[in-house]
């Protein structure tokens, strides 16, 4: 058995993979938060609950309608995104004139309500959701065993993140979004329906959370509280990356997943706290975050 720094390579690469998987979810979720924060100026604490709703949506699509994983990947973001649009129109739209804090309180309250309702209904032991047939099994890479589904999650998340980055930074639609982030009144005075754009942006950000939820279902099961724990870490990721930075949230998400994984190998005692330690250091040294401006 070969070793690196006295650690068996098998264990090292295994933790690296787990880190990449976690990083995939950190990146997808913090990206959604960044997109929403950029346009709405709201810190969407409901994000974790919406991730959980995505997983439940996949579960219901399968068990009530017989629609499998691939359908869920398509439909859950649309369905959960639509509930986001309702929330934006009915509630968030009333808060834009006010301090960040109100949006944060509202979305935090909503998260508690949604999680509470799901927990009453489904308890807190997870419901099973199987890996899709096409992605069962795995391959032996020589130095480690790579399960197909996990490889898929990392690749799919990376593709979705980069596509989102591309749209925002390199296209005309993205130019509208960036401009409206800076000066919504002027963009609207150019003839763009900015309120509608804000609504759709929230729907999209929520859709990303739901997509992550579907991808997580076969790995972590479907659990009403699955988002509650994760979202705390994701907020630390967002703080480290810098609120509102698109590329920052992607890079930081993956990087912190990997760092967390490596910590598990080299100093397991700190693996649950390493992200928060990094957050504290970043806050002290560079409060705007690694990729944040101002």
């Amino acid at each position: 058995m070969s070793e690196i720094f006295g650690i068996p390579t098998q264990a090292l690469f295994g933790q690296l993979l787990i880190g990449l998987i976690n990083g995939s979810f950190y990146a997808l979720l913090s990206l959604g938060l960044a997109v929403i924060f950029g346009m709405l100026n709201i810190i969407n604490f409901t994000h974790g609950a919406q991730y959980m709703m995505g997983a439940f949506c996949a579960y219901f699509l399968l068990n009530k309608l017989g629609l499998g994983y691939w359908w869920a990947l398509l439909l859950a973001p649309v369905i959960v995104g639509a509930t986001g649009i309702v929330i934006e129109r009915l509630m968030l739209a009333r808060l834009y004139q006010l301090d960040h804090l109100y949006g944060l309180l509202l979305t935090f309250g909503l998260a508690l309500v949604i999680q509470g309702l799901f927990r009453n209904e489904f308890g807190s032991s997870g419901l099973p959701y199987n890996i899709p047939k096409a992605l069962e099994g795995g391959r032996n890479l020589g130095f480690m065993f790579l399960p197909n589904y996990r490889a898929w999650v990392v690749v799919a998340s990376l593709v979705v993140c980069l596509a989102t980055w591309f749209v925002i930074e390199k296209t005309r639609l993205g130019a509208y979004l960036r401009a409206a982030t800076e000066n919504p009144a002027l963009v609207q005075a150019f003839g763009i329906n900015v309120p509608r754009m804000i609504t759709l942006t929230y729907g999209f950000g929520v859709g990303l959370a739901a997509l992550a939820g579907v991808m997580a279902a076969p790995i972590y099961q479907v659990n009403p509280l699955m988002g509650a724990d994760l979202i705390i870490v994701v907020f630390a990721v967002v703080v480290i990356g810098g609120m509102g930075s698109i590329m920052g949230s992607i890079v930081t998400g993956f990087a912190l997943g990997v760092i967390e994984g490596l910590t598990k190998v080299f100093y397991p005692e700190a693996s649950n706290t390493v992200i928060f330690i990094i957050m504290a250091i970043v806050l002290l040294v560079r409060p705007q975050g690694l990729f944040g401006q101002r």
Partner: protein
Amino acid sequence: MPEAADGALLAVRDLHAWYGESHVLHGAGFEVRQGEVVTLLGRNGAGKTTTLKSIMGMVGRRAGEIRFDGRDLVGLPSNRIARLGVAFCPEERGIFASLSVGENLLLPPQVREGGLGVAEIFELFPNLRERLSSQGTKLSGGEQQMLAIGRILRTGARLLLLDEPTEGLAPVIVQQIGAIIAKLKSRGFTILLVEQNFRFAATVADRHYVMEHGRVVDMIANDELQANVDKLHDYLGV
């Protein structure tokens, strides 16, 4: 107050506007005919910017009548007003820092036929061509002003609202902007121009309205300007 002539492209009557509780326009009225360049003169705080923003639908609450091409704009959101062919170039220029010069230029969507092509805009503002990939806010003040004007020429808007386009710029640039306004007029654009510098205004405008305390208090035709210099000095406090 002059009588509202028929056929004005823009007719503003008894316009009131508020920022929250504070009542800023108190019954302003004036008009702009098709193809004219008209200025709003007045001291700081007289309500010139607010008047342009009211036309554009960018103030919280407004009342009265703003007729553009026969349609009342009061009550329409600013995106609908833009789609009718009104374009606004703000006093602070509004160049987006997160957009390149090219993206800034192409940002405002085309709302109708008849706008300038990008090539024609580069003819008017040759500096912009070389700076297309720079960050919008890396341009000099003069170039930013050119960009702010240039980007609303593509859209096909017929009425341009320009808020102090010469503010803070060097005399040569002010001259260039004057020449551009003259060219735009010859191309059939109708322009409502806010100015504090009435000597500049005199070189480009057909008529001048004077604003004080949220009202239009006087109108001076450009050829009567010389005869009214003392009165203007009074109004503008120069």
